[in-house]
């Protein structure tokens, strides 16, 4: 076997904890003979290892596959195994005080008495043997009967690929029976071959095997092959694998190009503006530089003139003009060269990377779409309660955001009382609804009822309530953010591949948004309450004369809208953090969602949320680093949008429009 570097030992350390966790059930362990027995069959070779003989030991261990073998191999290589001369048994040992040693049984891990270093032989493994052992360790794991151990070994190879792992992988792939693991092995082998194989044909074949692969590791490997360095020469040397030639003035700045020449000592240093100034400063004589008074040196032209005068006197290095630079640079070719000398390999890698581009864009688009959907569902959740109160009742409720906050704090309080996250979530959702429903009804009865004829003042009065509630929350819960933890089954993420993944929580919020939409449509269109709500919305006077009590309907509608805000608050609290200001962050966006969507329509709100979510993510795609810019442009878009559709996407028509 070839040489294994020290990293393999590190690798082994990475694998081991995994293996200990994945150790097969005790039943399987009993089937295999204990490690000590196996070792005793090759006692001599273990006790005095040599390169020629170590293969026998490894074969024996491989054949027996006793539990603890990898651990033993690691310790053996690390000179931590001791032989007791009396009976030839092997032990691990823990060092005590002085020369005392506590022997540890290899199989059970139990203490097997104390002794001194004089009474046992430490088995000294030389460097050559150690490499053999370490190589064996990798292939040992790759050939292990337990598929989980083989997968773990592959994962650790993928984490830190080394050229020396190629033979072990090839051997393992030849005998692998599990189809999934075999695929993974073949791909890893491609990855390793693409980077480390010795002959060009194997590498090109391996790279071709990676084409179309959109995983991060494959792309990273390909990009590594394609890494370049910037160079220049009078003529491109024979055998250079040129990535591209840089044209001075287009691909590379003239000054930058010249400075690279002067850095390399091929051209005289160019005195920049600062250098000219410093040179002049150093040559001031009696308030003059080369006959020019200092106070006149406040323009670049005068300074250059003074510098030329100094140059003629020979006191300073000559000025480098643009023509000088052009002449110097023209003699050189500036180019980027691949670190990889073989152009066949780099061409293949370039082609392989290019082949993935379209697929990656498609996946990225899918990722953006998912993000936008998720954001839209959050906007929808935040806005849907508002769509009821604002849309159906034409009441501006600036405290809507605070109802969201109240819901989130309800969730937090429930979670402090009930430790099980799933149960507490189940309790918190209806409780949040109840709390905010009550708050909404109280607010409607006490304040809003009196202001139905003065909508602008409703806006202000509810704003008063909003700042009071916000400050109250701050007084009760403090200013720092409170955690609202999602249950474990919502905490993970759903991964499609290395490019697209979405957290389960976002999916949960999406599902919740859909449930709310259906529930609300059902209530408004299929229940008595919904019928009465629509009647009161369209014509309160007529509804009242039909025996509907508008007061009661208004109260219930407002309570419903507020209650939904509370439930949304629990969801948003899990997604973001619970603070007293969390509601205020959503209020403006929520209003815009409702206005853009079209007041008085649930589908309108859905469309509005979808539009705003898609827009924000879409703009973010063009400028990923800057979410603020995305929000700014989104708001600008909305302002313009309302110019063209003042009534929103879904505009009510006829009498229901209420103009």
């Amino acid at each position: 076997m070839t040489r294994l570097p020290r990293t393999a030992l590190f690798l082994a350390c990475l694998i081991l904890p995994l293996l200990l966790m994945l150790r097969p059930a005790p039943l399987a362990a009993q089937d295999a003979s204990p490690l000590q027995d196996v070792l005793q069959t090759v006692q001599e070779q273990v006790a005095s290892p040599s390169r020629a003989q170590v293969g026998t030991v490894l074969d024996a261990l491989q054949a027996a596959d006793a539990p603890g073998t990898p651990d033993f191999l690691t310790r053996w290589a690390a000179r931590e195994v001791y032989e007791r001369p009396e009976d030839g048994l092997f032990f691990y040992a823990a060092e005590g005080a002085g020369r005392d040693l506590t022997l540890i049984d290899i199989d059970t891990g139990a203490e097997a008495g104390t002794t001194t270093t004089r009474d046992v032989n430490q088995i000294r493994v030389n460097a050559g043997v150690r490499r053999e052992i370490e190589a064996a360790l990798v292939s040992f794991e790759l050939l292990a009967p337990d598929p989980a151990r083989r997968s773990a070994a592959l994962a650790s190879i993928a984490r830190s690929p080394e050229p020396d792992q190629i033979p072990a992988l090839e051997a393992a792939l030849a005998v692998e029976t599990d189809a999934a693991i075999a695929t993974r092995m073949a791909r890893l082998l491609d990855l390793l071959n693409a980077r480390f194989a010795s002959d060009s044909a194997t590498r090109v074949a391996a790279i071709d095997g990676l084409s179309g692969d959109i995983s991060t590791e494959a792309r990273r490997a390909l990009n590594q092959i394609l890494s370049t360095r910037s160079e220049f020469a009078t003529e491109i040397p024979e055998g250079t694998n040129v990535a591209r030639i840089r044209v001075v003035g287009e691909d590379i700045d003239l000054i930058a190009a010249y400075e690279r020449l002067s850095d390399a000592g091929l051209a005289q240093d160019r005195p920049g503006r600062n250098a000219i100034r410093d040179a002049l400063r150093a040559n001031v004589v009696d308030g003059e530089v080369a006959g020019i008074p200092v106070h006149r040196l406040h323009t670049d032209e005068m300074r250059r003139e003074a510098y030329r005068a100094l140059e003629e006197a020979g006191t300073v290095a000559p000025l480098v003009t643009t023509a000088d630079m052009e002449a110097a640079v023209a003699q050189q070719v500036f180019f980027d060269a691949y670190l990889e000398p073989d152009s066949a390999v780099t061409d293949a890698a370039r082609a392989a990377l290019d082949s993935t581009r379209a697929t990656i864009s498609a996946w990225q688009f899918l990722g953006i779409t998912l993000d936008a959907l998720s954001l839209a569902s959050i906007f929808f959740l935040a806005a849907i309660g508002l769509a009821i109160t604002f849309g159906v009742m034409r009441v501006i409720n600036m405290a809507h955001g605070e109802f969201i906050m109240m819901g989130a704090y309800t969730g937090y309080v429930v979670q402090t009382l009930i430790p099980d996250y799933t149960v507490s979530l189940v309790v918190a959702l209806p409780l949040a609804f109840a709390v905010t429903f009550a708050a909404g009804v109280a607010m409607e009865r006490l304040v809003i009822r009196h202001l139905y004829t003065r909508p602008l003042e409703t806006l202000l009065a509810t704003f008063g309530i909003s700042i009071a509630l916000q400050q109250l929350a701050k007084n009760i819960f403090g200013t720092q953010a409170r955690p609202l933890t999602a249950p474990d089954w919502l905490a993970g993420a759903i991964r499609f591949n290395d490019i697209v993944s979405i957290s389960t929580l976002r999916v949960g919020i999406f599902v919740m948004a859909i449930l709310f939409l259906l529930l609300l449509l059902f209530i408004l269109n299929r229940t008595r309450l919904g019928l009465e709500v629509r009647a009161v919305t369209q014509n309160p006077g007529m509804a009242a004369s039909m025996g509907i009590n508008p007061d009661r309907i208004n109260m219930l509608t407002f309570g419903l809208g507020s209650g939904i805000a509370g439930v949304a608050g629990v969801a948003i609290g899990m997604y973001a953090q619970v603070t007293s200001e969390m509601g205020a962050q959503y209020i403006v966006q929520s209003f815009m969602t409702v206005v853009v969507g079209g007041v008085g329509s649930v589908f309108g709100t859905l469309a509005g949320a979808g539009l705003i979510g898609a827009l924000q993510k879409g703009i973010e795609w063009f400028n990923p680093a800057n979410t603020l810019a995305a929000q700014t442009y989104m708001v600008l878009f909305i302002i313009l949008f309302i110019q063209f559709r003042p009534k929103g996407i879904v505009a009510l028509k006829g009498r229901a429009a209420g103009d």
Partner: protein
Amino acid sequence: MKIDVSSPAAPAPVRRSFLRDNPSVLWFMGLLGLFTLGVTVLSEGMGVGVISTSLVKVLGMTLCLCLIAVAMDVVWGYCGILSLGHFAFFGLGGYAIGMWLMYARTEIVIRDNLGRGTIPPTEAEVSEAVAAQIFGVVGSSELPLIWSFAGSLPFQLAMVVLVPGLLALVFGWLAFRSRVTGVYLSILTQAMTLALSLYLFQNDTGLRGNNGLSGLQNIPGSLHLPQSVISVWFFWASAFALGAGYLLFAWVVSGKFGSVIKAIRDNEARVRFLGYNVEGYKLFVFTLTGIISGIAGALYYPQAGIINPAEIAPIASIYLAVWVAIGGRGRLYGAVIGAALVSLLSSWLTGGGAPNIDLGFYRIVWTDWWLVLLGLGFVLVTLFFPKGIGGLFDYLVRKS
């Protein structure tokens, strides 16, 4: 001045002189003059020193807030447009003047530093050093395009008027043209404010992102003067601006123009049917108040010393509406009372100036409870005193 909000169809008064028609303007001017005189005499910089420099600044800033409140009152109380965006204009005015203050002062400091070398600096060196000094915090050293004329005071003073004015003109034209009214307009103006503050929060928009502009209290050209004197100057300027603005608005809302905008407030459709160009009137009021707000901001921020995008956040404009509503809409002095009372009370109570009240079982800490009180108080005012504090004057006038 006595404007009866509830009965728009008051009998047309006989044509008299403007001031005789509006005695409250005279009263207001007199009180403002007395107040200015009193503060000057008691100030640290010019008088006996009873009023500290920081208090003079607070009072001067309050006068600026009163000015924007008067503007808000005209656009909302008289014309019926609940704009939740006037603080954006206020902030823009502040940014416009702040750019000059910051640039000119930095330039003086830089010239001083570079001038100490044996060779005088070139213009390019100065402007590069200034840019590096100002924009170092946002990781840039280039002067953005909008700062090209920041060194020129006349240009930036023009910007104080032009930027808010143009924004108000364009936004108002778009909004009124498509007949966005009522709460929709409020939300739209709020969206504009939000967009502006989000825009300013970005580091690469050339106004130092969330750091804002700072050191505005140092006036270039008067760096040798103590703050105590400068504070009184600004106090005078603010008082003059408030007086002039009050006079202007009182004149605008009286007479025929005032009647038309009040009619628009009360029934827009009817005014339109009478043949008036409603959009034109609204646009004029919106733009004029926007410009005055910008001027108020340009006077406010040199006294505050710092401006950052948080000042423009939508909530500030809502507070403005709260002040006007508490003071009393539809009467200019009401806006002044509301703004002065609420903003001074707020800074007194949240600044820890007020003693906490010990109830035995609970200790009322004003910094914690002031906003709760303001919020609830505001609800009560809206519900039971729609005329605000200014409405109390009606009782006085009726009794006499």
